[in-house]
């Protein structure tokens, strides 16, 4: 193996006698300036003054960040791409305290931290600064004018503007009277306005300013390498955050990244080492703690409260805090440079795929408008090989987590995770067994989240895919139809989570009501995805933001909304009315049922069940009587088929009508379903109810009844989902198989 080339940099005229000829001069000022690096903040008052060590730290972090962006890593096409990926970087920097920085303990803390972050070999040589102790660089924080008395801050956190960090900010500011200093690095104007929007919206949400932004501009220009994605940004971020914390008297900086993203196991066989970024990896966090502690001269911690949460759980944190409307104001995309203001997400990078699936799994798709993604993972073709590689790798990894057989199997199959265990123990003060179990469970839950999201996407688009209305190069097409043909097995999580009731198979029920997607885990508590009724409003009214406005209001009002609410604008009210009108006019459109097999009309042949079909949003977002979603009637026609119609005058009932078992039995009769072959489907229908009850996914009412929505949803899946041909296309065998997959009981048994 040939020795790697050493890249030497002399920063701002620093000199050191061991430097080989040909070293690169990095100059920010004066003749020969080739680098423009600035850390600026126009106006903010933190008070206090930083020590030389903190100023040195920011200077070192700034130059490290620049050098990281300058030295090429190759384009990845060498026979052994690793030879160019791993770099030997040597920096000579002037500092105020060379004795401190040159001490073995400090140097080791600095180089091992950077080495892990970047997978490079770093070497620093420090010389005494020739300028006064209060040199003009970096200007960060020290130039800030005192505009008022220093504020007391309860916490200091780093705000990237991504979904996780915003969720962390919301969590940190949930208590009234809290003051949080939110430190951001502004390296792109494209995300700067969104970071500001988040703070503004949060203030609106709380009714008082609790998050106080410190937005630091960090720009670099010069001999940069455009294809290098720097890995050392976390160091710069932590240095600035640490300095800010020091100024306000804190010894802790919070950062927020979900546990799966922080450990960041490889998604493909070639994404090894730091090709999977490690900014919030437990080892990075621990080493940043060690370095900041040395600089501060006391224990200084960097903490990630989301270390054992999946991204879906992080999204749910936002939802639980009534701040899901902030999701659309966060940017997760890894391709910031190519971002457009109106479409900040590329849709195909790791971060975009991770975010979109997590938001869907959390039932918050309405809060993350799909038009914000240039490629929509749910319905657009993946034309680029890299996008295909990432998407399939991401799903494969998640599937692998679902196949795990306990902690030791996780160790064997994902040896990269070993790197995080010792560090997680150190930073969380948990015992090894607990860390192992938490880490394993975290990844299993992530696997489930991805599966849930894919099932929901399938419920939404599977019909179109099967009918050739979507290109087979969409993600679901590449995953293959078999994945969705049989319910996915869902293993129980060892420590917590749903347990499968005795006698029931582990399986997933997938339901579809037109564009309304509902996913239920038969093996445990229902994990209902948000009913996308409000998404309907968008489509019907062509107003892209109406649903978001409405859901935002519902969230702000604590989950309840009245049409008389002052927050409902006349336009929104008008749109809602238009929606109801349109819904009432065309049932086929409302339910997304294509074709002519369902008839509308006023036929009252046979028996009839009046009901109100509340959206699932009605379950989680109860609304008062003025807002009526769909009111439908299901009736059996004279020719033996089912008709669904909307009554001309809504009943206005607020409770969910319940459906008698007798009705279900009749609905599931072969005659009603128009089956050509016989079979005791009445019993199967009964079994279906038992299955739903055992799963805990329905409420028990008086007698043998179940909320109508569930049955209606289920019916609609039959009508539209199975094979795409409703009614007569259903064979008894397929129907039986469908039910068998959901319950281990024999037909005809109802608890």
């Amino acid at each position, binding site marked *: 193996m040939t020795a790697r080339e050493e890249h030497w940099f002399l920063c701002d005229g620093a000199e050191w006698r061991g430097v080989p000829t040909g070293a690169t001069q990095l100059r920010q000022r004066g003749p020969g300036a080739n680098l423009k690096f600035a850390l600026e903040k126009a106006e903010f008052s933190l008070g206090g003054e930083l020590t030389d060590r903190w100023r040195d730290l920011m200077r070192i972090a700034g130059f490290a960040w620049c050098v990281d962006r300058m030295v090429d890593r190759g384009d990845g096409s060498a026979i052994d791409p690793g030879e160019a990926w791993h770099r030997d970087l040597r920096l000579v920097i002037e500092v105020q305290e060379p004795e401190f920085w040159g001490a073995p303990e400090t140097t080791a803390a600095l180089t091992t931290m950077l080495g892990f972050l970047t997978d*490079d070999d770093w070497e620093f040589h420090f010389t005494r600064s020739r300028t006064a102790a209060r040199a003009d660089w970096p200007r960060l924080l020290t130039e800030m004018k005192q505009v008022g008395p220093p504020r007391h801050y309860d916490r200091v956190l780093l705000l990237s503007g991504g979904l996780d960090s915003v969720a962390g900010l919301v969590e940190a500011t949930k208590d009234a009277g809290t003051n949080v200093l939110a430190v951001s690095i502004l390296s792109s104007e494209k995300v700067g306005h969104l970071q500001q929007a988040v703070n503004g919206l949060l203030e609106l949400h709380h009714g008082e300013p609790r998050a106080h932004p410190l937005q630091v501009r960090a720009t670099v220009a010069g001999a940069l390498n455009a294809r290098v994605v720097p890995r050392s940004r976390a160091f710069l971020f932590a240095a600035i955050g640490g300095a800010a914390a020091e100024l306000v008297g804190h010894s802790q900086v919070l950062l927020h990244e979900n546990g799966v993203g922080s450990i960041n196991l490889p998604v493909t*066989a070639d994404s090894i080492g730091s090709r999977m970024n490690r900014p919030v990896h437990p080892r990075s966090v621990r080493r940043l703690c060690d370095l900041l502690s040395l600089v501060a001269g006391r224990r200084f911690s960097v903490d990630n409260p989301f270390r054992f949460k999946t991204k879906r759980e992080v999204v749910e944190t936002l939802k639980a805090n009534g701040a899901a409307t902030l999701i659309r104001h966060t940017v997760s995309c890894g391709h910031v440079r190519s971002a457009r203001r109106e479409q900040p997400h590329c849709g195909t990078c790791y971060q975009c795929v991770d975010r979109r699936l997590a938001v869907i799994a959390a039932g918050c798709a309405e809060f993350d408008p799909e038009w914000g993604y240039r490629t929509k993972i749910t319905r657009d073709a993946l034309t680029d090989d890299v996008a295909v*590689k990432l998407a399939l790798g991401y799903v494969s990894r998640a599937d692998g987590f679902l196949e795990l057989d306990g902690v030791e199997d996780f*160790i064997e199959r994902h040896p990269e995770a070993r*790197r995080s265990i010792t560090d997680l123990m150190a930073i969380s003060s948990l015992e090894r067994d607990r860390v192992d179990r938490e880490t394993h469970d975290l990844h299993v839950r992530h696997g489930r989240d991805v599966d849930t999201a894919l099932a929901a996407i399938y419920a939404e688009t599977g019909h179109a895919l099967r009918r050739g209305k979507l290109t087979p190069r969409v993600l679901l097409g590449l995953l293959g139809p*078999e994945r969705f043909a049989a319910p996915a097995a869902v293993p129980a999580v060892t420590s917590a989570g749903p347990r499968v009731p005795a006698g029931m198979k582990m399986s997933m029920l997938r339901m579809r009501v037109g564009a309304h997607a509902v996913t239920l885990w038969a093996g445990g508590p229902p994990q209902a995805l948000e009913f996308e009724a409000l998404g309907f409003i968008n489509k019907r009214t062509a107003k892209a933001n109406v649903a978001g406005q409405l859901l935002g209001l519902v969230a702000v009002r604590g989950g309840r909304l009245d049409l008389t609410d002052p927050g409902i604008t006349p336009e929104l009210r008008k749109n809602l009315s238009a929606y109801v009108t349109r819904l009432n006019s065309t049932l086929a459109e409302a339910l997304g049922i294509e074709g002519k097999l369902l008839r509308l009309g006023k036929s009252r042949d046979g028996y009839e069940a009046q009901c109100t079909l509340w959206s699932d949003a009605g379950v989680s977002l109860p609304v008062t009587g003025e807002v009526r979603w769909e009111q439908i009637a299901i009736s059996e026609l004279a020719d033996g088929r089912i008709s669904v119609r909307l009554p001309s005058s809504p009943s206005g009932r607020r409770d969910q009508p319940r459906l008698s078992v007798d009705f279900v039995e009749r609905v599931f009769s072969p005659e009603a379903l128009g089956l050509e072959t016989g079979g005791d489907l009445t019993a199967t229908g009964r079994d279906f109810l038992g299955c739903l009850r055992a799963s805990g996914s329905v409420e028990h009412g008086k007698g043998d009844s179940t909320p109508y929505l569930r049955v209606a949803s289920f019916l609609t899946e039959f009508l539209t989902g199975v094979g795409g041909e409703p009614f007569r296309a259903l064979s008894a065998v397929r129907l039986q198989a469908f039910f068998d997959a959901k319950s281990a009981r024999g037909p005809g048994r109802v608890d």
Partner: protein
Amino acid sequence: MGHWQPTKRPRVKRWRHVTDSLGGGASVADVLAATLDAIGESLLRAGTDATVQDVASLLLRLPAAAGHADFAAALRRLGLDVSGEPGVSELTSAFSDEVDRVVERTRARSDLGELAQMAAIETLAATVRHRAPGEQVTAPAVVRARLAACSSGNAFAGLAADFLGRFTTRWLSYQLSREVSGHVGPDKRFQELREERKFAAESGLRARIAAMVVRDVAGEWLRRVGNAELAKSSDVRDLLNRSVAAIAIELRRAAAS
């Protein structure tokens, strides 16, 4: 923050054969042979890679350490930071952490080294795992006993073959992942993910089968050095060189037959 950086197709003429054989529906064995023809030199470099040598050396010394009266102390002498007699988790974590420390010390970061490190942890976990019915984890005593059983004869050779089989599997996956995604989709070799996975599984299986040849190499090597604990770095280099060369020959032979 989970940024991901993929590699690209190798820019060598011979890689065209890999592209063509994959796209043309060639057998897995033929694709693997084409890969070796194109960039097999990368695999053969494993023997001279400092980190691969360090990883192999550390792994192959563990069975002998398990034979010492004080297993924990023997592990600490090898650099593994264990608190007492370790279970699967502590042993594999300590192993991984020690390799990382060695790499930081030797400054010999390499992709081959990373692949070897992960293959070694896999091997270690697979070797010592043996949960008793009803138990969540393998007892430390079982870990030690299973490791100690690998210190001589066929078991040692099996450990070496397992490691190099897993290493070769990882190397092949690493290299082929630069190509395979271009062959997934309608009208392509792999219509869907399931087919790609099947290909990857067969590829891994073939690598593991080919690595069986290492049993002979490692058995002869152990007889020569006498004790893996006493093996010099040149011995380890020799073992690696001969093993990966033998595996490459086996993989090509499978294609030819």
